[in-house]
């Protein structure tokens, strides 16, 4: 097989190869650690049965949708009461419910969010808990 314009073809193939394998090249020699959201806040330590508003698996998958429902419910319908899995009553609030238990935003929310590169814009207005 004779290749015409071999030089240009070679450059083209090198470019193609480096783009097509870029995810492998980026990760070469890097060990990735799975995020480990910490639950050791004073509020959670006080709890007898350590549980979230909904089951853990649900929270991991759908907490953003839940927050969206809470926001709409409070801001549009004026309803602030949320009944959790076990019949617990929560006040639907980002700052004074979620962040009361999860007061370690940097070690909890941000831990996951940094890994999957989401930057919730909530904190443009809502006040994040004070941490040092």
């Amino acid at each position: 097989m004779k290749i015409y314009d071999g030089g240009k073809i070679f450059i083209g193939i090198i470019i193609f190869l480096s783009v097509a394998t870029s995810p492998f090249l980026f990760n070469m020699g890097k060990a990735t650690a799975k995020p480990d959201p910490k639950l050791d806040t004073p509020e959670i330590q006080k709890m007898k049965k350590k549980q979230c508003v909904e089951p853990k698996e649900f929270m991991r998958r759908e907490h953003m949708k839940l927050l969206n429902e809470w926001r709409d419910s409070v801001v549009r319908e004026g309803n602030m009461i949320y009944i959790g899995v076990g019949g617990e009553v929560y006040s639907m609030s980002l700052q004074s419910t979620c962040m009361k238990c999860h007061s370690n935003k940097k070690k909890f929310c941000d831990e996951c969010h940094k890994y999957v590169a989401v930057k919730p814009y909530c904190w443009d207005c809502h006040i994040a808990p004070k941490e040092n």
Partner: protein
Amino acid sequence: MGALLSLSTALILVLIAFAGVKEANLHFLFGAIIPYIAIITFIIGVIYRILKWASSPVPFRIPTTCGQQKSLPWIKHSKIENPSGTLGVIVRMALEVLLFRSLFRNLKTELREGKVVYGSEKWLWLAGLAFHWSFLIILLRHFRLFVDPVPASLHLLESFDGFLQIGMPRLFITGIILLASVSYLLFRRFYIPQVRYISLANDYFPLFLILGIGITGVLMRYFIKVDVVNTKHLIMGIFTLKPEIPEGVGGIFYIHIFLVSVLFAYFPFSKLVHMAGVFMSPTRNLSNNSRMKRHINPWNYPVKAHTYEDYENEFREKMKKAGLPVEKE
């Protein structure tokens, strides 16, 4: 016929992935082995196609152009449409790849009152451009799941794409544009009789496949949620060559990644390989310098010629005897 065949193939692929994961528990097959096979097939297949194209000679310049070629100084030269050097070719190729310049000239032909009339037809160009650009942006956005740490430029891309701030997770505009434009490209094949007539199964299949990928992606992001952290862990396993299958990755993810694997494995053997082919189209990548440079056909072989001179040398005496005129005495 072709459409039905393609649609049912795409649906069967969805079922295979669904059954394979839900019923047969073949998570490792669908989450690691098939993606690897697809990546290897894609890379080797595309290189094979490039080398195959590169082995056919292009002996002459093919100036299928839409502008005046470089000529006398007082005739205006159209530098991009009919380039005479490398720079012009690069600009023409960039415009072709980034903006689909030749598709922009698409015309429609109609019979009106017994006369053939031509009209401008930009919808194909618009939908094609919208489709390709949104596909590219979506692919780039996916790098947030492919690399760790994620570069800051990806955040910028996401904040543009999600700037409407509708719902949570934030609505990405490109997802909507992709689904809308692929639907249009499919609809057009059904709706325009001439286009339907020339459409084959291998025109429909990529559209159905991409539609399937788009729909599963949108479902996964907004409706049937998966655990994104664990999903990224699975994907990072593939790209760090340490595949593993974490808990809590939903079935819909396996359908999505299986359709993507099929797309990549199918890529080199289908019309989709125009991604590489566009750079090798002679009407786009050759400068029109036929008047400045001599191009010699590489398959020319020495022809055994017998010129009139030779003929006369051979038969001069006989010709003279017969009274025929000769050029040299």
